[in-house]
C-alpha cells in the first residue's frame, strides 16, 4: 500500500488548500474524501443560494410608489421537495462517516502493541520490549524544549493503549486525521497503519560508525506530528511528539537495540529531554523547578528549614513522591509524580545523567553502568544533534573531592 497521494480523497481539487499532504494512515484518505466531498457539496449549495439571493435583491429592489407583485405564501410541493431531497444527501454523509469511523476504530490484526502514557505535559511511550524513545527533536533553533521521536515501522498495524496520569489529554495525529481522548481512569485505544514511505523521502543521518544506531544511517523516513488536543494547562501547546516511520527491517533492528543500547548517562539525558526539561533546565536557568546543573551532591535547604544532600535516595524520592521534601523557594509548585511512568532502570539512568552534569557529584561507581570505569562525557557516539550542554565540562568526577557532608 502506498502513501495515498493518489488516493481518491487526496485527488479531489483544492485538497492542498485544506491539508498539508495526503493522509498518512490506511484510513486517512477516506476522511479526506468525506471532507472534500462535503466541502464541494457545500460550495455548490452556497453558490446557488447566494446567486439566487443576489438575483432577488437586484430584481425585486424597492420601487417607491409601486405595489409589490403577488406570490403564494407557501407551496407544499416545493417545501416537501426541498426538505426531503437534501435530507437524503445527509444520509449519504452519515454513512460515509460511519464507515470511515469503523475503520478508524477497528484495528487490523497483528502488528505492534505499545503503551502510551500522557501526563502534564509530556508523552511516554513503551514499546513491547519495554524500551522507550531514544531521540528527541527541537521545534526550531530557539526552542528550549524538545519532543520525543517515536519510531514505527511502515505498513504495519500499530496499536496504542493510552492512559493519563492526571487530567484529560487527547492524542491527535493530524497527518492521520485521527484523534482520541486520553482519560485518567480507563484505557482508550488508537491504532494506525502507515503507508509505504514514498520514494524521495528524507533519510536519517547517523554517520559516525561508532554510533550504536549507525545502522539507521541513510534510512528513509517520514515524520508525523502528535499534538495534545485536550486543554491540560500551562504547557498544553508544547505537549507534542513525533511519529517517525521507517522501513520494517530498520525498525526491527532498532527495536532490538532500543534505548537499552544507550549508556546510562545518555539514556538519562533522553529521559530528561522527554519528561523533565519543561520544568528543569541543565544550564542553571530557572524554570518551574530547580535547575539540575550542579544539583546532584549539593546540600539544599528545604521549605521547612531542614537540609538535605541531593543524593540517589533524595532524587528517587523527588521523582516518586515529589511533595515529601521540597527545596526552599519552590514551595508553591506542584510537581507531578512519575510513579508508574518511570521504572527503576530509568531512574538509575537519570541519576547517572544528573551526576554527569554536577560538579558536586561524588566519584562512586554507578550501579547501573555496565562499564564502571568509564567517565561521564567519555561516551562514544554522542549524536550530532545532541545539545551542546549535554557534554559536561571538565570531568568533575575525576577530581578527588572533599568528604561530602553527612
Amino acid at each position: 500500500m502506498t502513501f495515498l497521494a493518489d488516493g481518491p480523497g487526496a485527488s479531489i481539487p483544492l485538497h492542498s488548500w485544506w491539508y498539508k499532504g495526503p493522509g498518512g494512515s490506511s484510513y486517512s484518505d477516506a476522511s479526506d474524501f468525506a471532507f472534500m466531498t462535503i466541502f464541494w457539496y457545500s460550495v455548490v449549495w452556497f453558490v446557488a443560494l447566494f446567486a439566487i439571493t443576489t438575483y432577488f435583491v437586484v430584481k425585486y429592489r424597492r420601487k417607491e410608489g409601486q405595489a409589490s407583485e403577488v406570490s403564494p405564501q407557501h407551496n407544499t410541493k416545493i417545501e416537501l421537495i426541498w426538505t426531503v431531497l437534501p435530507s437524503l444527501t445527509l444520509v449519504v454523509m452519515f454513512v460515509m462517516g460511519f464507515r470511515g469511523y469503523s475503520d478508524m476504530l477497528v484495528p487490523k490484526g497483528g502488528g505492534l502493541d505499545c503503551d502510551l502514557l500522557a501526563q502534564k505535559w509530556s508523552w511516554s511511550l513503551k514499546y513491547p520490549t519495554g524500551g522507550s524513545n531514544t531521540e528527541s527533536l527541537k521545534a526550531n533553533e530557539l526552542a528550549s524544549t524538545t519532543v520525543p521521536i517515536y519510531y514505527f515501522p511502515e505498513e504495519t498495524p500499530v496499536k496504542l493503549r493510552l492512559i493519563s496520569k492526571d487530567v484529560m489529554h487527547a492524542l491527535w495525529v493530524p497527518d492521520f486525521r485521527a484523534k482520541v481522548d486520553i482519560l485518567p481512569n480507563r484505557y482508550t485505544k488508537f491504532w494506525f497503519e502507515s503507508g509505504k514511505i514514498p520514494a524521495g523521502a528524507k533519510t536519517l543521518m547517523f554517520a559516525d560508525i561508532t554510533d550504536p544506531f549507525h545502522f539507521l544511517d541513510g534510512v528513509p523516513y517520514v515524520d508525523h506530528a502528535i499534538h495534545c488536543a485536550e486543554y491540560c494547562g500551562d504547557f498544553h501547546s508544547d505537549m507534542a511528539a513525533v511519529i517517525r516511520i521507517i522501513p520494517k527491517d530498520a525498525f526491527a533492528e532498532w527495536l532490538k537495540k532500543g534505548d537499552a543500547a544507550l549508556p546510562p548517562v545518555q539514556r538519562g539525558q533522553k529521559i530528561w529531554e522527554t519528561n523533565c526539561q519543561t520544568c528543569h533546565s541543565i544550564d542553571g536557568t530557572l524554570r518551574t523547578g530547580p535547575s539540575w546543573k550542579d544539583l546532584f551532591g549539593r546540600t539544599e535547604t528545604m521549605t521547612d528549614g531542614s537540609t538535605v544532600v541531593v543524593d540517589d535516595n533524595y532524587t528517587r524520592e523527588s521523582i516518586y513522591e515529589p511533595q515529601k521534601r521540597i527545596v526552599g523557594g519552590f514551595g508553591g509548585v506542584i510537581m507531578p509524580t512519575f510513579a508508574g511512568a518511570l521504572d527503576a532502570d530509568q531512574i538509575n539512568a537519570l541519576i547517572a545523567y544528573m551526576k554527569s552534569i554536577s560538579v558536586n557529584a561524588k566519584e562512586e561507581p554507578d550501579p547501573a553502568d555496565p562499564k564502571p570505569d568509564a567517565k561521564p562525557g567519555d561516551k562514544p557516539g554522542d549524536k550530532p544533534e545532541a545539545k551542546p550542554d549535554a557534554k559536561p565540562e571538565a570531568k568533575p568526577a575525576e577530581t578527588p573531592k572533599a568528604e561530602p557532608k553527612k
Partner: protein
Amino acid sequence: MTTLDHSGHPSTPAHGGHHDEPYYTGKGGVWPTIVDWASTVDHKKLGVMYLTAILVLFFLGGVAALAVRTELLEPVTTVTTITASGQAVTRTEGQLFNPGKVDPVTGEVSYPADLGNNYYNRLFTMHGAIMVFMVIVPGIPASLGNFFLPLMLGAKDVAFPRLNLLSWYVYTLGSLFGVLAIAYHGVDTGWTFYTPYSTTTDAGHWRVVYMILAAFTLGFSSILTGLNFVVTVHKLRAPGMGWFDMPLFCWAIYATAIIQVLATPVIGITLLLLVFERVFRVGIFDPGLGGDPVLYQHFFWFYSHPVVYVMILPGMGVISDVIAVHSRKPIFGYRAIAFASLGIAGVAFIVWGHHMFASMSEMASVVFSALTFLVAIPTAVKIFNWIATMYKGSIAMTTPMIYALIFLFLFAIGGLTGLPLATLNTDLHLHDSYFVVAHFHYVMFGGTIVALLAGLHHWWPKMFGKMYNQKAANIGALLVFVGFNVTFFTQFFLGTQGMPRRYASYPAEFQIYHVISTYGSYILGIGFMWHLLVFIYSLAAGPKAKDNPWGGLTLEWVAASPPTEHNFDHEPIVTHGPYDYDTQVPPKWDPKDWPLPDPAKVAAAHRH
C-alpha cells in the same frame, strides 16, 4: 388594525399625565429616576438595562478576544542567555504578557514560558465564559425579547413583571461573581470546566468557584426569563391573535424559552456538583475517588448543546421579521418556520454527544451522529423559506436588511461547516481544532450577534424614538462583515491543517494564518466601535423617528416611538396576520403612500 376600548378593566387612570410620555421619561431629579429604574417592573426599561449590560460585557469579552488574537501573532519561542554574572536566564518571545520569575538565590529574573501561557489560558477562558454565559445566552431574549414580546402580543407587560425584575437582579449578581473571578486574575479552565482539570487547577484559590457560581446564578436568571416568556405567550396574546397570528419572533422566543426552562436546571446541578467536587472533594468526577470525568461531559453538554439553540433561535426570529418587513412581503412558509423552531428545540435535546465523539463508546457516537444530522433539516428549511420570502418582494437595502443578508451568508457557512463535524470520521480529525472554533464563531457570532445587530437597527427607532444615520451604519456593517470573514474563515484552514485549539503557541508554519486572522479581528473591533459611535450619535443628536418608519404590520408598530409606559392606549384587537402585506396598509401610514396590489390577483395567488 382596529382597536377597541377594553371595557371592564378595573383600573381607573386617576393618576394622569404620564400616559403620553415615553417610557424612559425621568421622574424629576437624578435620584428619583435612578430609584425608578432600579425598582421598575416595566419590561421596556428592563430590556434596555439588559441591553446595556450585555453590550458592556460584550465589549469586555471582545477585549479579551483581541488580546488572545494579539498573543497569537507570534509563536512562543524561548531564548536562553548567560548574564554577566554567569547566570543563565530565559527570555520568552511572542508572549503578550509574562510577569517573569525571580530566582530566590541569585535574584536574576527569568521569563519561563508557563507564566505567559497561564495568562493566555486565563484570557481565553474569560473570553468564553463572558461571551457564553453573560452575553449570548441572555442576548436577544433578555434585551429585544423583553422589550418586544409584550408589544408584539399586544400586552401591557410580561406575565410576571416582578419576576422579570428579579431575573434582572439575579443576572447582575451572576455577572458580578464572574467579574469578581476575573478581577482575582481569572480562571484557566476554559469555559467548559472539564474535569479533572477544573477540580484540581488553582488549588487553594476561590476564583474557580466564583466563576462556577457565576454561571450557576446566571442560569437562574435564564430560567426565570424563560418561564416568564412561556406564560406570556400562552396567556397574554391580544384578542384575535391565535397561535398562527403571532409574529415569528414570538415563536422563536417561545421555543427558546422552552429550552431555557428544561435545559438550564441540568447545568445548574452540574455546576453545583462541580463546586461540591472542588470544595468537598465528593469524588463524583474524580477518577482517584471512583468518579468519572466523562460523566461530567455528559452532564455539561446535555445543557450546553440545547443552549446553542437558545442562542440562535431568537436570532432566527429577528431575521424572519426583518426580512418580511424590509421586503414588504409575507414570510414564505410561516407554519414551516414556526414548526421548524419547535422542531429544532426538540432535536436540540438529543444530540449532545456530538461534542464527545473522541471520548464516547462507538455505539453512542454512531447514534449521536445520526441524530445530529436531523437538526440540519429544519435549519436548512428556514434558510430556503427566508430566501423564498424575497421572491417578488419590494426589497429595500436598509441597514437591517443588509444585516439580514449578512446573517444568511455567515450562518449558511456556519451551518454547512457543521456537516463535517457531524460526520464521524471527519470529526475525529476536526474535533478540538481551529475548524471547530471557526464553525461556532460563524454560527454564534455571525449568526446570533449579527441578528442582534439586525434587530437593534430594525427596532432602534421604536425603542428610543431616534433614527440613526443609515449610511454610516452601513459602513459599520461592511467593516464587521469583512473583518469577520478575514478573522474566521482563515481559521478553517488552520483546523484542517492541524492547529489544535486553546494553544498559546504553535508550529511556525501556521503563523501566516494567525497573522491574517488577527488583523481581521482588529477590523472587526473597529466595526463595532463604529456602530457604537453611530448609536451614541443617534441618541444625542439623531432625528426623531416616525412611529412606523419601515412599514411593519406587527403590533409593536402601533405603539408610539418610543412606547409609553403602558404600551398601548387601548388594548388592540387583531384582525389580520403579522405579514399580510398583500392586503394591509401598515399602522400610521397613509394609504396614499402605500399602494396595495390588485385584490383579484391576491385572491388568485392565495387559492394555491
